[in-house]
């Protein structure tokens, strides 16, 4: 069996911004300023961020490739397994890619969709209600009143939906399970049987039956799953049209439109007859969409090309070369209203294709010239912004263009068929600077799935003799193998299979003229020189058909057709005829710079399409006839050059990778090949010979069928292209992709580059030598005196200090950091002048417990210094430097000095506590020795590089972090990064990091009787533009980036996602400003507001590795993991769209684990926590609380979810934290709860007990310690937001603890003490001893019903 093909994981740093992820980025100030915390509801993000960003392209053989921004080879996109199943295809004409899903026009002119598989499946919940009414005699039954809903209905009862009415949308879907009733009623557990009760339909439903309950209903649910991932899946054609509507073009876009549902796309397609269709309802849960909706174009126009921008704008190109724009496209009317013609630069210019970006539109005219449309503004929808203001001619000649997500542009060279990337395209210069060719090879085969089936062995048989294999021994030599012969070797079984396939294909071919090129394999013959004649013969046969087809179907007068078959449109024309394509495209320039990897140049390039614009079909035919003789000659030459022996050598030595897979059996087969080679060589000389042998003809057909498999699985070399799509490619404008850097060529021995110093061999040698040198020269002489005594040194600087006593203001000061001679002491001194008297404040470095950057409303560069007494008062010593660089330098210096003094160096202690601030900074406390013994306000926090929203750890030092853009990171054991420049970092382990946040401003309006809603505020109003509180004025213009490390990546856009909902213009209404906002106007509402968001991105660095581009909103690592156990730790996560996943293979050595496993749930989740003894607690988005049973090392996914009793009505849980035994939770009104009486017999506990309010987040440690981040603390000097606190007095009798001990605070966001295991000592709680019998009890309670009610 062949080796399993592993998928190369995408390690892109560039995060896609396809979906909006909104987070408030608030200012934090201390001590008394405002600090808004991140609105908890925003933490639940509906959007999923699909992985990496790829450039997609179609090669001239119709094969689809993709190229990651940080990759240096094209990766072929193939069907998941090598089965040639009906409905899938391998040859394509065009692609249009979005992130995660790609649409393509197949060579059979059907549309195909390719959904990239992720670890989270596409799962859709179907549900229906079973309604019953109570009658005095029969009890509850389905005898309903006429006014009642039907026995089976949807929520509102209007539609009758029996279970049988739910059908799978297409063959791509499968049911996950049978129907079952849902016992979860908005977080509460229903009565037995899942029934909810009410007095009447429709009414308030309750989970409990009361004496007034006359009706009841229950919800039956069932999930269906999209299974056709990583496969080209056929989309049904337009109903009513003749079978198999031939499509000419497809374009997808609209992913950046505001207020889109998850994965929503605008899919537009063009048929061969020039009609425009829109695919309705394309979302992530329905990737194939629902129906085709014809969009009229009027005036008998026929369309040849379409393009959709990320903002949903649509441009089409007509046969006569006009460009039309769809007007009125908005997020609530994606189809738009009407077309508007855009004038060409001059009358002579006729457009071939237009490509739309956000703020850029590019076009190609028929002569290959490139035109840039200026004045396009993607975010607005008025006619001028959509159509732009004028055309500018750009340099270069292209046959196709594609504009990407952020207006980056790719093109395919008119003559060389290479893909060009437009360098230097920035928001300020959308036209870019120059074209640069992407000259890369196709990579080693990467299959997107490891599930090679039995076909794989068959596959391998052929790959071994693939004609494309590079010959390492003879790099200059063409290692060309005549595939036709090798194909003959296939064993009977496979042949049989092919037979049937072929027969089918043949029938299809005969039956439908339109479908004559439906055979996917026909394209691959071109490489087969033995078949040349035959192929030609076939071509000759098909050309008349082609003619017929063109004339009959298109109904175009010949003159106009002649016009269209010119240079620019050659691709279209060429693709129609299967063999024509071989001649016109593949003969181009494979012989150029590939070191003998290919030999496609069977035909010389002399095609009609090069000749003139007045090309016609007839010319093609005559060319073909002319060529046939030459070609035969050439093929002869080619064959004679290939000695049998050398062929065999090549087979043996060709691609080492492939040959590893060969078994001896296959070698025997190779012998057969050789035999055949002789045969076919003798057959070869004349075209007639081949023609005359029908059997042979047949073989050729089957052969090409196989050959497709063959070409799929082994292709290394530089492809040439016919189509490109950049809509899935999000290139960071600041960094050029790696495509052009030749030093990253993996095939060659790595050349040391100026930028790639690091762990080279010589460095290790040198380091070892230095160690040896110091050992030799120092170790025996340690008793010698040091020649140079160490003394102190001082760092000085001028800055401003916030004077805390009146008058409170910034005053000039000098700062001196003095580090002691023995590195055990040091001071920080602030010198200032007060009333002309020099004064100073001095701190011992040992007093400092934290140095932190502060975002100040004054927009200064401010940092704060905390000491224990200052923490008690929640007053940081605030200093402001003139520049951000100086601020970072000082924070770094002081922090380093404090760390040195406390002996903290190197990697973070595995039992450290972690915390993050609202600014995304990461802080660590290394336990010395036991966290519990130190008062919370004396523990020392130091910063680590990186930008994260939250950090989760466990006691063996497995640490994961989640970014604001929901990227998962794992701590790699390094230190430094971020503001700790160079010398203070462990460079080998510092990676660059990015994160994305949104900054919001609010637009406020008040209603008045004259003008309605307007900006004219009543006297007690708020600024028109404000922050969320309305106290500070924040306009779009004066909102600045948080720091120099951030950059804007989007424009201001209305956000339709705030809590409470919005109307179609994004407005939220309220009775008054400080009241609750809702999405629809009510009669009492007198104010409204809308939220504008703008995304920005940080470039930072830290000792973190990106895990996998799967966005997460919560993660938890097993709290009692024993690293010596040899088992993997239980790691559970919640994806950003609420899917629950289990990360497998996580160990101390491999903290990132190996892969995700999806855990099915009935509804999206939001929080998860893995406590002791594999007890997994989770909270769903509807705030129902779940307990996963049966989790064990042997069964990492557990067996089933148990529904846990929720807190009393009105409280909705939001976050859960499970410690060794204790379970705590926070509700969405910031109330803190603990679960009472968790015992081995009742691991789910008895009930929730409320502890206190104003708690933002809770973390429970391995000894059931409880730490929180308080939302707000009231101090004499005003409220302080985001303070870390520790619960004191937790005992067996008092599991809720007694008091809070405040720690670091003012701007903190999360804390994690899950790693803070204290040295084992007598834990005096009864629970601690009881719980020892947990594991057995857990298994015992397993096989019970679905619900555990307490």
């Amino acid at each position, binding site marked *: 069996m062949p080796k399993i093909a592993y998928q190369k994981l995408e390690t892109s740093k560039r995060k896609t911004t396809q979906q909006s992820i909104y987070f408030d980025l608030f200012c934090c100030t201390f001590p008394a300023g405002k600090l808004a915390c991140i609105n908890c509801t925003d933490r639940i993000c509906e959007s999923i961020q699909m992985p990496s960003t790829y450039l997609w392209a179609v090669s001239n053989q119709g094969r689809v490739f993709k190229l990651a921004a940080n990759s240096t080879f094209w990766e072929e996109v193939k069907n998941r397994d090598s089965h040639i199943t009906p409905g899938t295809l391998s040859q394509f004409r065009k692609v249009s890619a979005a992130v995660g899903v790609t649409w393509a026009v197949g060579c059979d002119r059907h549309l195909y969709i390719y959904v990239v598989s992720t670890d989270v499946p596409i799962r859709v919940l179907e549900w229906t209600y079973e309604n019953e009414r109570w009658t005095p005699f029969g009890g509850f039954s389905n005898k309903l009143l006429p006014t009642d809903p039907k026995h089976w209905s949807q929520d509102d009862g209007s539609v009758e939906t029996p279970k049988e009415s739910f059908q799978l949308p297409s063959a791509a879907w499968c049911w996950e399970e049978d129907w079952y009733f849902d016992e979860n009623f908005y977080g509460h557990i229903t009565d037995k049987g899942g029934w909810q009760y009410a007095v009447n339909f429709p009414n308030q439903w309750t989970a409990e039956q009361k004496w007034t309950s006359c009706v009841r209903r229950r919800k039956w649910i069932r999930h269906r799953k999209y299974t056709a991932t990583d496969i080209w899946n056929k989309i049904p054609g337009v109903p009513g049209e003749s079978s198999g509507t031939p499509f000419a073009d497809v374009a997808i876009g609209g992913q950046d439109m505001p207020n889109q549902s998850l994965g929503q796309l605008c899919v537009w397609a063009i048929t061969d007859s020039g009609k425009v269709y829109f695919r309705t309802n394309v979302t992530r849960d329905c990737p194939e969409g629902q129906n085709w909706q014809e969009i009229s174009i009027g005036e008998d126009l026929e369309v040849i090309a379409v393009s959709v921008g990320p903002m949903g704008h649509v441009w089409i190109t007509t046969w006569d070369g006009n460009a039309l724009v769809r007007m009125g496209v908005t997020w609530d009317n994606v189809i738009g209203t009407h077309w508007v013609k855009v004038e060409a630069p001059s009358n002579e210019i006729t457009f071939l294709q237009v490509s739309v970006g956000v703020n850029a539109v590019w076009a190609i005219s028929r002569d290959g010239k490139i035109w840039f449309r200026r004045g396009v503004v993607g975010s607005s929808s008025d006619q001028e912004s959509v159509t732009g203001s004028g055309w500018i001619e750009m340099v270069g000649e292209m046959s196709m263009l594609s504009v990407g997500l952020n207006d980056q542009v790719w093109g395919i060279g008119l003559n060389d068929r290479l893909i060009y990337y437009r360098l230097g395209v920035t928001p300020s210069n959308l036209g870019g600077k120059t074209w640069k060719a992407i000259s890369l090879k196709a990579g080693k085969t990467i299959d997107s799935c490891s599930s090679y089936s039995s076909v794989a062995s068959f596959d391998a048989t052929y790959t071994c003799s693939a004609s494309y294999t590079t010959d390492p021994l003879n790099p200059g030599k063409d290692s060309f193998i005549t595939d036709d012969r090798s194909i003959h070797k296939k064993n009977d079984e496979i042949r049989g299979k092919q037979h049937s396939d072929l027969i089918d294909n043949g029938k299809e071919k005969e039956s439908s003229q339109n479908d004559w090129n439906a055979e996917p394999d026909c394209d691959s013959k071109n490489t087969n020189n033995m078949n040349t004649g035959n192929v030609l013969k076939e071509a000759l046969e098909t050309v008349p058909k082609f003619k017929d087809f063109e004339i009959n179907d298109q109904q175009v007068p010949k003159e106009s057709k002649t016009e269209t078959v010119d240079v620019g449109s050659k691709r279209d024309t060429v693709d129609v005829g299967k063999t024509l394509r071989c001649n016109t495209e593949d003969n181009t320039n494979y012989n150029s710079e590939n070191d003998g990897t290919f030999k496609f140049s069977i035909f010389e390039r002399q095609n009609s399409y090069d000749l003139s614009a007045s090309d016609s079909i007839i010319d093609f035919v005559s060319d073909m006839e002319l060529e046939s003789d030459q070609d035969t000659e050439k093929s002869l030459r080619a064959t004679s050059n290939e000695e049998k022996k050398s062929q065999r050598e090549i087979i043996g030595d060709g691609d080492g990778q492939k040959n590893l897979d060969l078994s001896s059996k296959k070698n025997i087969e190779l012998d057969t090949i050789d035999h055949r080679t002789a045969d076919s060589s003798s057959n070869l000389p004349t075209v007639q010979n081949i023609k005359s042998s029908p059997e042979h003809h047949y073989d050729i057909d089957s052969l090409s069928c196989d050959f497709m498999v063959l070409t799929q699985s082994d292709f290394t070399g530089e492809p040439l292209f016919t189509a490109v799509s950049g809509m899935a490619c999000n290139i960071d404008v600041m960094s050029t992709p790696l495509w052009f850097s030749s030093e990253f060529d993996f095939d060659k021995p790595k050349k040391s580059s100026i930028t*790639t110093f690091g762990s080279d061999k010589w460095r290790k040698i040198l380091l070892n030598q230095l160690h040896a040198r110091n050992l030799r020269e*120092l170790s025996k002489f340690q008793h010698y005196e040091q020649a140079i005594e160490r003394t102190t040194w001082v760092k000085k600087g001028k800055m401003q200090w916030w004077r805390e006593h009146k008058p409170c203001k910034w005053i000039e000061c000098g700062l001196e950091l003095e580090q002691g001679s023995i590195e055990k002491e040091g001071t920080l001194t602030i010198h200032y002048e007060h009333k002309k008297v020099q004064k100073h404040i001095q701190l011992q470095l040992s007093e400092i417990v934290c140095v932190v950057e502060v975002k100040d409303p004054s927009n200064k560069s401010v940092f704060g210094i905390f000491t224990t007494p200052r923490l008690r008062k929640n007053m940081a010593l605030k200093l402001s430097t003139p520049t951000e660089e100086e601020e970072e330098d000082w924070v770094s210096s002081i922090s380093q000095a404090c760390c040195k003094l406390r002996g903290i160096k190197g990697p973070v202690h595995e039992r450290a506590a972690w915390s993050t601030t609202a600014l995304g900074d990461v802080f660590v406390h290394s336990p010395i020795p036991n966290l519990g013994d130190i008062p919370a306000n004396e523990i020392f926090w130091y910063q680590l590089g990186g930008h994260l929203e939250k950090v989760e750890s466990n006691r063996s030092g497995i640490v994961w972090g989640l970014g604001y853009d929901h990227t998962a990171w794992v701590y790699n054991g390094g230190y430094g990064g971020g503001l700790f420049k160079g010398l203070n970092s462990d*460079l080998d382990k510092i990676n660059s990091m990015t994160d994305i946040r949104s900054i919001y401003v609010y637009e406020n309006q008040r209603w008045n009787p004259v003008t309605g809603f307007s900006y004219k505020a009543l006297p007690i109003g708020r600024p028109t533009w404000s922050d969320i509180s309305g106290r500070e004025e924040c306009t779009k213009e004066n909102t600045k980036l948080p720091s120099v490390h951030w950059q804007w990546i989007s424009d201001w856009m209305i956000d339709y996602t705030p809590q409470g909902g919005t109307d179609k213009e994004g407005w939220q209404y309220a009775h008054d400003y400080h009241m609750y906002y809702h999405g629809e106007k009510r009669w009492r509402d007198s104010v409204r507001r809308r939220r504008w968001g703008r995304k920005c991105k940080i470039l930072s660095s830290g000792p973190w590795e990106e895990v996998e581009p799967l966005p997460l909103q919560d993660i938890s690592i097993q709290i009692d993991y024993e690293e010596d156990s040899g088992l993997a730790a239980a790691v559970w996560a919640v994806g950003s769209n609420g899917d629950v996943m289990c990360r497998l293979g996580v160990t101390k050595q491999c903290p990132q684990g190996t892969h995700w496993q999806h855990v099915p749930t009935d509804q999206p989740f939001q929080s998860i926590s893995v406590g002791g003894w594999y007890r997994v607690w989770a909270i769903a988005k509807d705030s129902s609380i779940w307990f996963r049973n049966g989790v064990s090392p042997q069964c990492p996914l557990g067996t089933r979810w148990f529904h846990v009793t929720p807190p009393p009505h009105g409280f909705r849980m939001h976050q859960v934290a499970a410690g060794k035994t204790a379970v705590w939770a926070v509700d969405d009104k910031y109330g803190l709860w603990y679960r009472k009486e968790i015992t081995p017999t009742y691991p789910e506990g008895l009930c929730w007990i409320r502890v206190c309010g104003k708690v933002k987040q809770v973390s429970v440690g391995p000894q059931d310690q409880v730490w929180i981040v308080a939302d707000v603390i009231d101090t004499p000097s005003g409220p302080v937001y985001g303070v870390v606190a520790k619960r004191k007095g937790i005992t067996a009798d008092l599991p809720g603890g007694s008091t809070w001990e405040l720690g670091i605070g003012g701007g903190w966001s999360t804390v994690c003490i899950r790693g803070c295991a204290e040295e084992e000592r007598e834990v005096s709680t009864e629970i601690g001893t009881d719980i020892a019998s947990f594991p057995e009890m857990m298994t015992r309670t397993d096989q019970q019903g679905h619900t555990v009610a307490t």
Partner: protein
Amino acid sequence: MQLIIDTSIRQIVIKTKVMAEDREILREIWDGRVPICFSLASDEIFTLEHPDPFFLLVPRQSYFPLATDRVQRTFLKHVDPDNHGEMWLEYESQPLKWHYPVGLLFDMYNSKGPLPWNITVHFQNFPEDELLHCPSRDAVEAHFMATVKEADSLKHRAQVINSMQKKDHKQLWTGLQNDKFDQFWTINRKLMERLGEEGFKYLPFRIHQVLPEKPFIQKLFKPVSDEGRLFTLADLLRETVPHIFADDTSDVLRCEVYIQGVNPPLETPVQWLSEHFSYPDNFLHIALVNPS
């Protein structure tokens, strides 16, 4: 579904941003000390009581005048108060140049010798034609700063050193003087930065040959070719001292090459060596020692 992370791509991506800083190497180099036994020249002992030899660990990066204050003070008590001049050091009748870093002197004269390094202290018969006078530490500082400036003019056309403030220069010097790694490298880091993506304009290096002693070799040498290829130590040596190669083809050497007390592999890029193995004066001091 089994997924294997291909780390090679990741590593490449990461390394593109690595600067010329490798704390581990720099720290090892900085922490280099040479054990030295200072003895007063026996013919200069004036007192009856012979002074005990003085055992010190001298930082390799430092200069003798910064390290020998106490030696001088102790031994002065034992020499003729009326007949003594400036202190100078000698090893096996080789006067030691104070303006060379200690590590370089050690590599040149005692790389193979016994430890501790026995150095004789003289107060008479100053070898005027071989040594410079060193009136005070200021002279060392002046010499040091001049060398740093020369190095930067080679590396960056003096752009970096000229953009620094006086206090930065002072911090550089005091960092070296007081053996403060952080203090020194906070400033020196800037001097070692590459401007843009290219390497240094020219490589600041000096090749010191011992036995027979010749003046050091210093030439203009670009560490990176115009095509972006990194020149290696072998390239540098072939360019400057071709005679030390046994033949034209192989990299077999007739002598040993010492930098900072070690023999670097010849394939080490000189750009990297300059960034990490330079002495505090920013020069890459290469000692060629004949195997004896």
